């Protein structure tokens, strides 16, 4: 009997075209899901790379270079309370000499490097009233005399006093010049010292904290955002509708603008809040299988008569049934309150970066455009139009923000910044009675300005 049915093996049966349409709908949704996953993964990877490389370069890298030295064990960028500069822009070199405390070099000006005999150093310093030197190294001179090498901010008075004491002295404007004063320092500790001295030389474009523990600033930015809607059916019977909505709607590059106030603390933590206007755009396109288009035919006849010419115009309208692609650009306009917490670290005199997290609370949402209903018919979602489909909540769900920020210090008071972020809506933006859940994952990039008050 098996032989009788062998002819079925290669027999091809017919089926309706809807089968492929339905399968393709699922495949398209899968492709969009993959695309979204790639965007999120890429953004996360970029954020991870920026934060990891920044941390390693400015912390781990420095520590490694100094560990090899016996008399300067460690150099690190630490916040300080006894300087007029931003905590992240103050550099402290820890001195291993028991007689000296850790010293802080306020910078933003050329540096003096001088050498003083170890035997007379203390009295020299009392005479010069030098309080902000930093010990770099001890060198052995001819005749086994020990000479300490110090750096201080350049000052004409001090430099002449140092010279009067017959000490070696040099004003340095670049790191490389240190080599002529203390070559072995740059050779043996070149990596660490260059880093520190580069910062000391160039540093200065930061807002002063003074005696205050925090500074207030105003901020404003514009953003490019890609709203990526994600649909999920509340029960399995709506899966086809879910894939239909996923297939017919696609997020477009959209814009946002925000303004607000922030507060940065000496320790580097900051908090920001403000008001944001968002205008998300989506493209809705679908094939209307029962579309009717109209063709208008205008017939113009010219009739010549003895005395005159008469022109007759005849208009006829023909109904043409068939399918047609309908494209509509939807918009979701919303007002929101963003609240962000972050931690900021300085890279050098002109750059700093921060990692941040927070939430965006929606206070008003207005949607316009069209979407498919569960019968696969395009329906209006604009609330002010008759017969609209009431799908969206009057307020969007709270969005969670994760992101980073790179600040460029234009002046001590004005910083420009760029901030890549990923945002997630916490719960569905649609009504409870709606058949699908709709959430968003939005990658975005903001550019803006901070002004320290």
């Amino acid at each position: 009997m098996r032989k009788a049915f062998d002819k079925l093996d290669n027999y091809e049966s017919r089926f309706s075209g809807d089968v492929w349409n339905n399968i393709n709908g699922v495949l398209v949704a899968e492709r969009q899901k993959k695309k979204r996953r790639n965007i999120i993964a890429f953004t996360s990877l970029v954020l991870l790379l920026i934060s990891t490389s920044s941390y390693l370069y400015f912390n781990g890298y420095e520590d490694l270079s100094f560990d090899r030295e016996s008399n300067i064990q460690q150099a690190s960028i630490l916040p300080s309370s006894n300087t007029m500069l931003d905590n992240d822009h103050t550099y402290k070199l820890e001195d291993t000499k028991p007689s000296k405390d850790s010293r802080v070099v306020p910078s933003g000006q050329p540096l003096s490097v001088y050498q003083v005999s170890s035997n007379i150093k203390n009295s020299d310093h009392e005479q010069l009233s030098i309080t902000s030197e930093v010990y770099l190294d001890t060198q052995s001179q001819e005749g086994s005399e020990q000479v300490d090498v110090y750096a201080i901010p350049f000052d004409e008075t001090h430099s002449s006093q140092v010279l009067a004491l017959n000490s070696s002295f040099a004003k340095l404007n670049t790191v490389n010049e240190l080599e002529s004063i203390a070559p072995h320092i740059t050779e043996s500790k070149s990596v660490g010292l260059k880093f520190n001295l580069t910062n000391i030389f160039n540093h200065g474009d930061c807002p002063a904290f003074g005696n205050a523990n925090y500074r207030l600033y105003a901020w404003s930015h514009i953003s490019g955002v890609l709203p990526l809607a994600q649909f999920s059916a509340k029960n399995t019977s709506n899966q086809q509708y879910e894939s239909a909505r996923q297939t017919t709607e696609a997020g477009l590059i959209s814009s946002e603008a925000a303004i607000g106030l922030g507060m940065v603390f000496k320790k580097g933590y900051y908090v920001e809040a403000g008001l944001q206007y968002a205008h998300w755009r989506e493209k809705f396109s679908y094939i209307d299988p029962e579309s009717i288009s109209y063709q208008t035919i205008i017939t113009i006849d010219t009739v010549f008569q003895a005395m005159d010419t008469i022109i007759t115009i005849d208009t006829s309208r023909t109904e043409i049934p068939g399918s047609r692609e309908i494209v509509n650009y939807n918009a979701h306009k919303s007002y929101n309150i963003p609240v962000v917490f972050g931690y900021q670290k300085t890279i050098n005199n002109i750059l700093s970066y921060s990692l941040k997290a927070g939430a965006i609370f929606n206070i008003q949402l207005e949607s316009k455009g069209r979407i498919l209903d569960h019968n696969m018919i395009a329906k209006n979602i604009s609330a002010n139009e008759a017969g609209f489909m009431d799908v969206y909540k009057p307020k969007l769900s709270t969005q969670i923000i994760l992101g980073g920020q790179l600040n460029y210090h234009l002046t001590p008071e004005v910083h420009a910044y760029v901030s890549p972020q990923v945002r997630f809506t916490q719960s569905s933006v649609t009504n409870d009675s709606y058949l699908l859940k709709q959430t968003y994952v939005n990658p975005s990039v903001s550019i803006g300005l901070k002004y320290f008050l």
Partner: protein
Amino acid sequence: MSPFYKNSITEKELVEQCLKLEPKAQRMFFDLFSGRLMTICRRYGRSQQEAEDMLQEAFIRIFSNLSKYKSDGSLEGWVRRITVNTSIKVLQKKGNRHSSDDIDDYAIDAGTPSELEVLEAEDLIALINILPLGYKSVFNLYEIEGYSHKEIGVMLAISESTSRSQLTKAKKMLRQYVSTIQKRAI
């Protein structure tokens, strides 16, 4: 020869393209197997609509599991297995039990295989579809797909002996039906 060979793409390349979610490759893959897989679905489904639902479900499973396909085996064999399993799952999901309760009243006479061999493919599908669900599944799995009674028992959650019994009855019922039709034709 398969259609994609005409377009100078190998089976392996087609699978690779589908794994990259290339729309054209997915359509080509569908065109390549859909007709034959629909025949399978028609053998299991009780209506054209149910068969199309099975085909749709089968292709979604095929595409989402394509990464599990090992290229050393037959691609067609693999997609056929998925389609058969999907068809059975669809029937089970709809609450159809593969029992023999509904066929005990049938009178069964013996017939000959040669009577079946003269039938066309469409007639054979129609013939299979007259069988009650329990018979049909066992008959399809054993006679056409080539599964053993032990395997069928596991797939349909029935005993091996029930599978044997249902197959015997299905065969006899088919022969009787063919014989009746032929007598009427004469």
